[in-house]
């Protein structure tokens, strides 16, 4: 079995960081190969080199016998390499067919031949299982369908190597199932699939082999997944043994801190009520779209509520972000990029953006004080950044998340912390650090609400879980009652139960 896609001694440095050092491994045709590693391990850099986004400093990339050097994404695609990024590269207002033929519209003297266009697109979609109308606009498709269109685009270019970067991160269980079916089909067609994911269960389910990167080097390479266990992979990823990544400790819960009563808004029509006690970590579990983030946003005042009220320690809170912060209620949003970080500004600036009001008399800032606060929290949360002046976009996801946590921990008067998907897209090592931050805060008496789509995580760190389904809180589980299949069953709308049952059987 000879490798078709081969990386040979690929190295790439950025000022201050050696992102990749002498990466060497290969994948044969008809294989799905996992690419694993913590954030910052070099996975994205390697994928970018493969896809022609950036070029390597040294080393070579081979497709079959041919050495390739891609100067652009276009060159890579023409050579048969397609990368499906987490952020899909589709034009939302154009149709599926138009997206698939973008740049190469079949035309006569500049007039688009729509019949030919849709025929071509439909052929590519049929190859991956079909089921999508080529005349539908991208905006009207679900995320899972959009991903299929992106993969169909790869097929249109006759890609022989397809890299998928965290493809299931925003898919429901049923959609993931469809994706796995499709990957299987591509495998049978003899494609090389490079599968980047944090979810080890998925990797074990669909990958034939895997390569683990750590600190820009190949930490381990397996041609068959049977040769390795999940724990071994985690060890290779972090370079040390992790026993219990949750580290939950029992706590004495106090009185009710946050009480939410009949809260409803445009995107959450059914009124929701719940309460979190002091020192309690309350989990909100549900499928994507169950209304958990919408609920958090209403409580925080990020979206306007139609009715309902909330109170902290018995005092009513006006629902507006700045008033919530004054009252000691803060939220780390689900979408870090859109709602969390302020791009183009420094890490320090991102930390003090809210808390600086406490030490800026008459609205005049104190650069020295800001620097010391920023440095203090960078150190306390172990944010990995060259300095507080670094632009936040250059940090990894985990460090961006820690920066946003730092923004709130710097507040002198915190009572309630809402965290929406605290560890999405974050590596194992950073996860443990974030959990221990949450425990510390809970021990100080904060009421903590956590939205998580990762059930083991929710069960691992929460004292109690509320399950949401289709915009309603449907069930409550105390820690003693935690049971994976019971919680999942409660989260599934009736029609989804079957698909999930299949997933769990498989």
């Amino acid at each position, binding site marked *: 079995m000879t490798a078709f896609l081969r990386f040979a001694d690929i190295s790439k440095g950025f000022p201050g960081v050696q992102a990749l050092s002498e990466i060497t491994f290969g994948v044969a045709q008809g294989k799905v190969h996992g690419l694993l590693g913590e954030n910052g391990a070099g996975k994205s850099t390697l994928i970018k080199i493969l896809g022609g986004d950036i070029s390597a400093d040294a080393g070579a990339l081979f497709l079959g016998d041919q050495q390739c050097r891609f100067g652009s994404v276009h060159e890579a695609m023409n050579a048969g390499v397609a990368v499906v990024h987490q952020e899909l590269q589709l034009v939302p207002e154009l149709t599926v067919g138009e997206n698939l033929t973008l740049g190469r519209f079949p035309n006569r003297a500049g007039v688009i031949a729509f019949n030919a266009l849709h025929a071509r697109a439909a052929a590519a979609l049929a190859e991956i299982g079909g089921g999508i109308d080529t005349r539908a606009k991208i905006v009207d498709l679900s995320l899972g369908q959009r991903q299929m269109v992106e993969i169909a685009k790869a097929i249109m270019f006759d890609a022989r190597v397809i890299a998928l970067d965290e493809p299931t991160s925003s898919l429901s269980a049923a959609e993931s199932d469809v994706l796995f079916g499709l990957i299987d089909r591509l495998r049978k067609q003899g494609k090389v699939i490079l599968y980047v994911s944090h979810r080890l269960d998925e990797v074990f389910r669909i990958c034939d082999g895997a390569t683990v990167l750590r600190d820009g080097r190949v930490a381990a390479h397996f041609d068959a997944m049977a040769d390795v266990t999940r724990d071994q992979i985690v060890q290779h990823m972090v370079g040390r043994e992790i026993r219990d990544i949750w580290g939950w400790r029992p706590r004495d819960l106090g009185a009710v801190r946050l009480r939410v009563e009949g809260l409803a808004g445009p995107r959450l029509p059914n009124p929701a009520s719940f309460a979190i006690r002091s020192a309690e970590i309350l989990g909100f579990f549900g499928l994507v779209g169950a209304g958990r983030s919408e609920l958090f946003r209403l409580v925080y005042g990020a979206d306007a509520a139609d009715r309902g009220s909330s109170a902290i320690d018995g005092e009513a809170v006006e629902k507006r972000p700045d008033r919530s912060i004054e009252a000691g209620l803060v939220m780390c949003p689900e979408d870090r990029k859109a709602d*969390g970080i302020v791009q183009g500004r420094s890490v320090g600036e991102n930390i003090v953006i809210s808390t600086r009001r406490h030490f800026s008399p008459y609205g005049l800032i104190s650069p020295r004080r800001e620097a010391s606060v920023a440095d203090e929290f960078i150190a306390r949360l172990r944010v990995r950044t060259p300095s507080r002046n670094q632009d936040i976009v250059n940090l990894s996801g985990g460090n961006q998340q820690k920066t946003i946590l730092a923004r709130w921990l710097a507040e002198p008067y915190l009572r309630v912390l809402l965290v929406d998907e605290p560890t999405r897209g974050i590596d194992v090592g950073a996860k443990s650090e974030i959990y221990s931050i949450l425990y510390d805060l809970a021990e100080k008496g904060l009421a903590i609400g956590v939205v998580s789509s990762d059930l083991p995580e929710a069960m691992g760190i929460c004292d109690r879980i509320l399950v949401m389904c289709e915009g309603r809180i449907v069930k409550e589980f105390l820690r003693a009652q935690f049971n994976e299949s019971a919680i999942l069953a409660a989260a599934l709308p009736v029609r989804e139960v079957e698909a999930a049952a299949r997933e769990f059987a498989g």
Partner: protein
Amino acid sequence: MIRLRRLILGDQGLVVIFVVAFAIVALLVPNFFTERNMLGLLQSVVTIGVVSGSMMLCLASRDFDLSVGSIVAFSGMMAVMGSNWTGSVAAGLALALISGVAVGAVNGLVIARLRINALITTLATMQIVRGLALISSDGRAIGVNDPVFYAIALTPLFGIPAPVWVMAASFVIFGFILNRTVFGRNVLAIGGNPDASRLAGVNVASTRIWIFAIQGLMCGIAGILLASRITSGQPNSATGLELSVISACVLGGVSLSGGRATISGVVVGVLILGIAENAMNLLNIQAFFQYLVRGLILLVAVLLDNIRSRALRRGA
């Protein structure tokens, strides 16, 4: 060679280019580097300069203001007419400032509270306010009765005319606002990511209203200085000012997509525009060609900025 590249593409690249360009012009253009010409040059950029500080805030927060030229003309009219009505220059000046702030605040309220796109809002107020200026004077220039009024633009302080001092002070103040106040940092944060800023507790709506109100105030000041210099209120004055001011900001490296601005850049941008025009006048280049040159300078500056930010991104 690499050193030179780094110097030009670095943080202070714009200032370096400016100094070099200035030296070349001073050497090659006769009568350029004389006290008289320098003062004339500074006076010629006062209107642009006074408004550019607040425009910097506006652009840095990802907004846009096309109405500045009209507000300058309108508040100039109000200054003159107010002085003539009341017989008091002070009352006229107050009226000018109030009308400037009022138009700016309306801009801000419509944009921030009614959520109408800034480009469209100010495109509308640009025409409305120009209309008001024309209606109030029946389309004619109106002379000033009180000689105190045009003394404003002529009174020298330490040998430098008062308007130049006002411009210099506005640069200092806006530099301070941008770098040392919560308001200024919030402006940059809003430009970087408005949604995240709101969730971080920044009052985005009121910050945007303030930005436009301040912009209106600066237009009021510029309107007074302009009316004083041309010794009358002219409803058609300052047409196209918005484009010059935005050009100066962009020349100075203010990002049109928000979040990036420096006052030193804006000062340099304003001076580059002034020097180009001044040098062309001294060289007797026909006015028609000056448009061409100004456009070319803007294009080159933006290209340079593009190269710079790409170099920065590669470095990251």
